[in-house]
């Protein structure tokens, strides 16, 4: 029982990271109707930017988190005029291929810039341990959970309460109508990309101190994010968060009781099952 609880708690904490990583993907999918196959690369890039920032300036982990969000956010927003704006209205095939190409450029670009050898992103909380009765909680995982919930809350308020958030919602509902109501499509799209990039970078900076960094570290995170988004329902923020937790707890249990190293198999088997049984996901509005 105690072991079971430990697995559930670990899953719950990791779930915050899963949710945060997947939010940016569901946002781009829901608002711009783009399946971003370069999503995992944002996650890796975020961690590497933080690594370089801390290495060059000697400044702390939290500042690195903020800087990484800003840098990757700016990078992501530049992608809209460079690539994705040009492909709008040309069907999904071109954006799938272009974003896959972007992913190759980014992942291999990271390898060329930072090298392929494993590196470590230092966080003061990795060695911290919190004890709740007989359950042991890693300090970094606790941090992931707390910051993820804060960022999800901030995103929710931004989307619901601000003018830009309203424009994003309008664009998600109906592009033509939004345009007629005076929404600047280009600026809104760029803002959506920026938010997506920043959130995903944050997920990378938060989760990766627990593991080692390598250029391909985002691949698995990107794939898990796809599973989370489909599981939760495309375009649904709440569904994505919920799915992130469910999937993380499920994986933690599977790793604990079955065999280790089957994270992706669990995630994708679940995803394909969801596609068969409930294509619109947990809280999605339609396939």
């Amino acid at each position: 029982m105690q072991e079971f609880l430990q697995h559930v708690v670990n899953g719950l904490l990791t779930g915050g990271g899963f949710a945060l990583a997947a939010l940016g993907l569901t946002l781009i999918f829901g608002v711009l109707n783009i399946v971003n196959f370069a999503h995992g690369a944002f996650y890796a890039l975020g961690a590497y930017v933080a690594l370089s920032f801390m290495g060059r300036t000697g400044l702390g982990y939290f500042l690195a988190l903020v800087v990484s969000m800003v840098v990757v956010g700016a990078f992501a927003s530049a992608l809209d005029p460079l690539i994705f704006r040009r492909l709008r209205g040309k069907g999904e095939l071109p954006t799938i291929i272009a974003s896959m190409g972007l992913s190759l450029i980014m992942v291999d670009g990271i390898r060329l810039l930072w090298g392929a050898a494993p590196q470590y992103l230092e966080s003061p909380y990795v060695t911290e341990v919190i004890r709740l009765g007989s359950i042991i909680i890693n300090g970094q995982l606790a941090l992931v959970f707390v910051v993820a919930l804060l960022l999800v809350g901030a995103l929710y308020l931004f989307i619901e309460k601000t003018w830009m958030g309203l424009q994003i919602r309008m664009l998600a509902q109906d592009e033509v109508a939004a345009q007629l109501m005076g929404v600047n499509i280009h600026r809104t799209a760029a803002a959506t990309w920026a938010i997506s990039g920043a959130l995903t970078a944050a997920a990378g900076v938060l989760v990766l101190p627990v593991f080692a960094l390598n250029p391909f570290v985002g691949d698995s995170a990107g794939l898990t994010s796809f599973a989370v988004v489909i599981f939760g329902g495309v375009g649904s923020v709440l569904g994505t968060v919920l799915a992130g937790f469910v999937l993380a707890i499920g994986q933690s249990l599977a790793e604990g009781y079955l065999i280790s190293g089957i994270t992706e198999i669990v995630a994708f088997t679940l995803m394909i099952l969801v596609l068969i049984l409930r294509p619109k996901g947990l809280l999605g509005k339609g396939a």
Partner: protein
Amino acid sequence: MQTTVAQDAKTAISERARKSTRSSLLAIAVLALVIFAIPVFVGDSPYLMQVAVTTLFFAALAQSLNLVMGFAGVVSFAQAAFYGIGAYTSALIALHFGVGFWGGFVAALLMTFTLAIVLGLPTLRLGGPYLAIATIGLQVIIQSVLLRWTSLTNGPAGINNIVAPTLFGIQIRQGVSYYLMVAVWLLAIIVLLYRISRTRLGYELLATREAEGAALAIGVPVSRLRIAIFALSAALAGGTGSLYAHYIGSIDPYVFDLTLSATVLVMVLLGGRASIIGVTIGAAILTLLPEYLQAVSNYRMVLYGAGMVILTLFFPKGLAGLAILRRSIGRGTRTEPGGGVAGVDA
């Protein structure tokens, strides 16, 4: 009078179709001639023959993707996975059941065909980007299984000592004879694709790709068609994988990764989706380029990625869209308002 006009139009159309068929057939004949002539010039050099066989493997794999992506408009990132399953199935069946290459080859075809139907059933019906996502998942899962199911696949070490094929009692080893065998397989795929493009099935696929709703409305069984083509494409990749395994003699899971899938995808994009000759040329260029430009090889994935982005943005029709090549390659494609490709060319 009207009937005469209609008849004139009909004659003109069928005349055009006959001409385009003739020029496409001619293009395929020239391609076959080139493929079979290569050993005459480089047959003495084992290295050059190895490069030539590799080119054929890539061309066959690219054509298998061309079928599902170019003709049916479905992006698959799992082509390397089916290639790998074909290779492993064939090697293991030949090893454990003593049925030799041919038994393994047939098993590889059946295995990949069946697996693609099982995996395609839930995902292909949904349309949209779900299949693309599912194929990436599939690619990752399959590689993961090949790595971890050690009792069957021998894990990261892979399988060694795969038997060479025997034909009419003669063992076919690396070199010219194996080249000819793969060349026959490639040409069989090309002829199959060409046949499909000229039949009702080809036009139905085209309709499915260009306007799914309209195709459904006129009674094209869109999802069944997609699943059939997906499975056929997987089987072609699987057969190619079988040929590869028995050629190279030892396989490991790292060969059949997402990078290989992406490489093959760029070959199809460069050649021009649905262009049979174009894709063959695209595959040849992208196999030979890294072979001879060693400086390029460190930047290969960045360049492939850039190729995917640039081709999509600026040259959606690939080599087949270039005016100079268009005449020699065959009938030109009709340009769509959205910049897409129409028409299936040989």
